[in-house]
């Protein structure tokens, strides 16, 4: 005797595979950040890495491990990435308690990058050391702010 279940043909391997792929894509989409705060944190996430990169670049220039042209290229890439994050943060609808301190920090980060480049251009080792210290403090503040909000 056939019932409602046995009357439907067994799904073919192609259909099963298609179902699996759709499930995988849905899972991938479901893993995306949903709230404005989560989206903002994801947008600004690379900034921590850029601050650390600028700090390391400054230190390496001071120990003659990288040329000035590299500092110029690194600060240009960092400025572009931080600027992009700042633009996104300005548009964010996340709560002001998170968004505003982050925006202020991003503006400071852009300025610290500019200072580092200026100091290297002028071969000002004391200035580079100050920029490195400032970048290190900004990185620590960034980590505290983003980890505290996550």
């Amino acid at each position, binding site marked *: 005797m056939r019932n409602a279940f046995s009357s439907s043909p067994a799904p073919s391997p192609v259909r099963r595979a298609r179902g699996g792929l759709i499930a995988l894509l849905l899972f*991938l989409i479901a893993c995306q950040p949903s709230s404005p705060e989560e989206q903002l944190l994801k947008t600004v996430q690379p900034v921590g890495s850029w601050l650390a990169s600028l700090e390391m670049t400054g230190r390496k220039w001071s120990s003659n491990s990288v040329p000035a042209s590299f500092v110029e290229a690194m600060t240009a890439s960092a400025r572009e990435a931080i600027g992009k994050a700042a633009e996104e943060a300005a548009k964010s609808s996340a709560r002001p308690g998170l968004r505003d301190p982050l925006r202020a920090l991003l503006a400071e980060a852009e300025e610290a990058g500019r200072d580092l480049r200026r100091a290297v251009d002028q071969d000002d080792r004391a200035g580079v050391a100050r920029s490195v210290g400032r970048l290190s403090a900004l990185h620590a503040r960034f980590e505290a702010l983003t980890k505290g909000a996550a």
Partner: protein
Amino acid sequence: MKKALALTLGIVTSIGGFLDMGALATSAQAGASYRFQLLWTIGLATLLVIFLVEMSGRFAAATRKALPDAIREHFGFTFWLVPFFVLSLSHLLVLGTEIGGICFALHLVSGLPTSFWALPVGVLLVTFLWRSTFNTIEDSTSLLGLITLAFVVAAVSHHPPMKDLLAGFVPTLTAEEPLKYWGIAVSIVGAVLSPYLFYFYSSGAVEDDWDSSFIGVNRGIAALGMGFGSVVAMGALVVAAMVLAPRGIAMDDYHQAALMLTDAFPFWGFLLFAVGLGVACLAASLEVALSMAYATAQTFGWNWGESLDPREDARFGAVYTGAIALSSLIILVGVDPLKLTLLAMATEAAVLPFVALPFLILMNDRKLLKEHANGWISNTVAVIVLLLALVLTVVSIPLALLGGGG
């Protein structure tokens, strides 16, 4: 002696095919983001690529034919035409990536923009390919490629924790940010399993005049050559894990990778990175340009051979010249090399099933290969690669877009 020297084919294939811009970038990104947790992906990709390279070498030695030639003959011109066009597109993008890598290395050393170097590098590559024989390319890139061992020396000098290092060879299912983790894992496997690697190796074996007496040596060459590339890629991952990860540098841009060797080699590290990247990308550019010319010439039945005078195989020379010109143009217009690498790896993953399936069928053709046809071990690996290729084709693009892998 000739057989011992054949090792250079394995090393040049490895430096150009295994250790290219994509593999270096993804290995460094893996180490910077997940420390040693993704070492297993390089281990897995190495094992698979050793088997595939061994098979393509065995095929060439047993039949004295390169793969595209045999696929066209066996399956017909019409069957091969679609994979050939997809493969050609993939070749062009990968070539653009590798030329971008050389230009980026020159940008690091000179401070001039990456795009500035596109034309000089294109002219240099064409001149080198026109003027040199296959043996010159093998020997020079193998010798220059030894500089990439700087990554291994740096990795050892950092004294990575052995327990964590060994644990990295076991896949982790509970990583932070799973999308990014799997995105990078897929990118590493996709970057290593490059179709052009097998085409270059099999055509190179024909160029080197291999016969069935090379089949035993071929196993050693595949294992040692790919092992070389694997050790260097693992070295890059370990260095990134020891230098970039503790500082919180996740490698979102190639400039960040340039700092990797400066802890181990404070004075020379920056230059070593630039030269290592430049050499790896130079070898890969030559390999991809030749692979495209081999595949095209073999598809249309033209004369081919890097050791021939360009007048004897003008169309073969015209293909690599045109390919280099087009790919240089991509960099000249200012396309970001990192974005191009992601796109190139996705197309490589997409083309892999088209290449792997006919390859598997050919390797089981006992009329063609006689006693050298695949046994069950090789077939098991080939089926794993085919399944992996299908998964890569489907997930590589969504994972790269959603997880930022690669």
